[in-house]
């Protein structure tokens, strides 16, 4: 794309169509931003539900008894780091390095996978050792729905990232793959934002 544009340097028509193409790409990125805001509203309703129900434990285990902070702290730092490495992937892409881009995406995906592993371990421990299932109390229903929805988002992001890595290794950095990397990096930062509020409102306020 870049080379074609340089060849057509003298023709203003070619420059114009290039600009239009870029506008179209930024419009698609804006469309993704709107999706993120609708997701923000989805999580907002789940947070509201959790906040009003968190005291209703129905005689079952409370937040303070259930949450084990070492695992939560570890997964928080893992997710913060993965947000940073997905940024480094975008920087590698802007340098034009496909190897660097795919490398940092692999690091990001591995961090995301360890985050999900820790979360599943936590859920299994809660269900098996503490007998705290989604049906035990209103608090736990809201808890599993909120934290589980976030985990589902991270898992879908992982599948998407692996698909994008395959596409990148086949086609390299083009206008289309460039936009896709920018969009998945936005998505990943957004998941980090949601986790910050899960960490604060669910876990920190739970053990306070």
């Amino acid at each position, binding site marked *: 794309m870049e080379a074609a544009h340089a060849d057509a340097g003298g023709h203003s028509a070619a*420059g114009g169509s290039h600009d239009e193409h870029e506008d179209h790409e930024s419009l698609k990125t804006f469309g993704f931003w709107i999706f993120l805001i609708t997701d923000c*509203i989805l999580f907002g309703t789940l947070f509201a539900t959790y906040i009003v129900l968190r005291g209703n434990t129905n005689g079952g285990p409370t937040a303070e008894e259930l949450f084990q902070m070492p695992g939560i702290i570890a997964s928080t730092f893992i997710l913060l780091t993965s947000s940073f490495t997905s940024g480094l992937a975008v920087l590698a892409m802007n340098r034009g390095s496909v190897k660097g881009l795919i490398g940092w995406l692999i690091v990001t995906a591995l961090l995301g996978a360890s985050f999900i592993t820790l979360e599943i371990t936590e859920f299994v421990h809660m269900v098996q050792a503490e007998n705290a299932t989604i049906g035990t109390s209103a608090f736990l229903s809201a808890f599993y729905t909120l934290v589980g929805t976030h985990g589902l988002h991270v898992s879908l992001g992982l599948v998407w990232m692996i698909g994008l890595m395959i596409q990148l290794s086949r086609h390299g950095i083009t206008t289309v793959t460039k936009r896709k990397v920018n969009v998945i990096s936005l998505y990943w930062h957004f998941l980090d934002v949601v986790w910050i509020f899960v960490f604060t409102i669910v876990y920190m306020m739970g053990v306070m």
Partner: protein
Amino acid sequence: MAHQPNGTHGAGGHGHSEHKGHGSFKSYLIGFLLSIVLTIIPLVAILNDLVEGNAAMAVLLITAVLQFLVQLLFFMHLREEDKPRYNLMTLIFGLVIVVTIVAGSIWIMTNNTVAH
């Protein structure tokens, strides 16, 4: 002759799109370090019982909101957006809805005499 100015224009355009896009290593590193510090502050303050009650709640909420801003400004590049700032407008619209839902739910349920 005609080729020369066009070439410079192209280079200028390229530089512009890089600027608006995606920040630098420095801004990512600053964002990352800030987000680590903003996570450690509430952890140390709450788990060691340095603050309690409303003060603890304030520390938690302020550090969370600052973290949110760090992600938006340093990682999601909200301030580098071109005008008109549709992303920012959409974000504000979404946040108004979220705050209405969360604050409204809390207000309704704390004033709900049937639930208590």
